């Protein structure tokens, strides 16, 4: 674990906590360390994956990235967490979902390599959200019924009144908010947003595959990582870098069929989930 000390260069910054070292009594460092560990343990125990590349890739993280940066990102080698602006956003290390999301960009980089633009970029973002939601639920021992399907609660600053940033359900995370306005994420392909912002709306249109995962998980019940999560993990890793939503639907349907067989309720749940968001698998 490294500390950028409110700068952006040079990375990864000052080494502040080694692997297996004791806590250093610095909340930002220690929570990032703990959440990185939860993320590693989830991939190892649930999907038998040894880190980001399945070969033990070192999980390098830097906290306090830049002065007042309200963001977290994967730079192709490591994850970086800003401390927020203190007004609208708190430190991004507060959220296990965000830490898990950023490390999962590394899993994408070592598997499908989904290009970060348009539909493939939205799939990249969605896979990271989907895996991060499972990791939080796994840590909490939650079922799909008891799980919190909203992410980003922990980083909401004092000047925001919203309850989270993104929701997997059919409801927006926020609506008509005086500061943020409306949650931009669609839940159906007919509402796909065409924009030049955000690399073609990768954080906007990810709402469509996110909602498909939610519907599959709810239909299958129990703990999301056991069936729906496994199917998504198996399917998404096989996508090409330029995959479309239809490709993702097809890959997850094929993954469900391979694991549970034709005519299984698991296969039907995945097919129905994609159809509900307007994406027809090509099988």
């Amino acid at each position, binding site marked *: 674990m490294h500390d950028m000390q409110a700068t*952006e260069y040079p990375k990864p910054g000052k080494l502040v906590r080694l692997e297996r070292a004791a806590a250093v009594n610095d909340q930002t460092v220690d929570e990032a360390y703990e959440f990185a560990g939860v993320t590693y343990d989830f991939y190892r125990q649930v999907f038998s994956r040894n880190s980001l590349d399945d070969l033990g890739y070192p999980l390098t993280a830097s906290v306090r990235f*830049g*002065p*007042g*940066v*309200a*963001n*977290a*990102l*994967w*730079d*192709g080698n490591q994850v970086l967490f800003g401390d927020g*602006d203190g007004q*609208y*956003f708190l430190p*991004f290390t507060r959220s296990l979902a*965000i830490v898990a*999301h*950023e490390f999962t*960009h590394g899993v*994408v*980089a070592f598997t499908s390599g989904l290009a*970060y*633009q348009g539909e493939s970029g939205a799939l*990249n973002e969605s896979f*990271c959200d989907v895996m991060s939601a499972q990791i939080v639920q796994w840590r909490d021992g939650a079922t799909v019924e008891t799980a919190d399907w909203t992410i*980003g609660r922990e*980083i909401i600053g004092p000047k925001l009144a919203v309850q989270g*940033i993104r929701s997997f359900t059919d409801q927006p995370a926020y609506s008509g*908010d*005086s*500061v*943020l*306005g*409306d*949650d*931009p994420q*669609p839940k159906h*392909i*007919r*509402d*796909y*947003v*065409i*924009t030049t*912002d*955000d*690399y073609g*709306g*990768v*954080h*906007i249109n990810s709402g469509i595959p996110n909602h498909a995962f939610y519907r599959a998980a709810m239909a299958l019940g129990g703990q999301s990582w056991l069936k729906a999560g496994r199917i998504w993990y198996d399917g998404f890793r096989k996508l090409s870098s330029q995959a479309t939503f239809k490709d993702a639907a097809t890959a997850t349907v094929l993954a469900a069929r391979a694991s549970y067989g034709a005519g299984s309720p698991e296969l039907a749940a995945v097919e129905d989930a994609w159809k509900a968001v307007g994406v027809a698998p090509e099988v």
Partner: protein
Amino acid sequence: MRVTLTQTGGWANVSMRASLDSETLTPSESRLVHELLQAPPVGLLRSAARAPLADGMQYVLEVDTNAGTRVLRFNDADKPVGVQKLLELMRPLFRPVPYTRSDHHPLG
């Protein structure tokens, strides 16, 4: 001279915007802005284009002067040389830009 910086994307994907008028800045800040923006290409040289960073930000910098408006687009992966100090100056001024559905165009 008026400078407006809009930031989009990032994990939270909340657009943020800040504006400043060079005449209201402290002398050292004003000097910095003028150095960065009135003497291109030294201050605003583009770095080599790189693939986007996952959850990286995108930026639009608009500079209004008597001679017109100049617009520069960049992202966290290819920030122009010299823009880092301007970002640090303007970031504390950022305020969210409320999103409305009509901002974009659904397929239909």
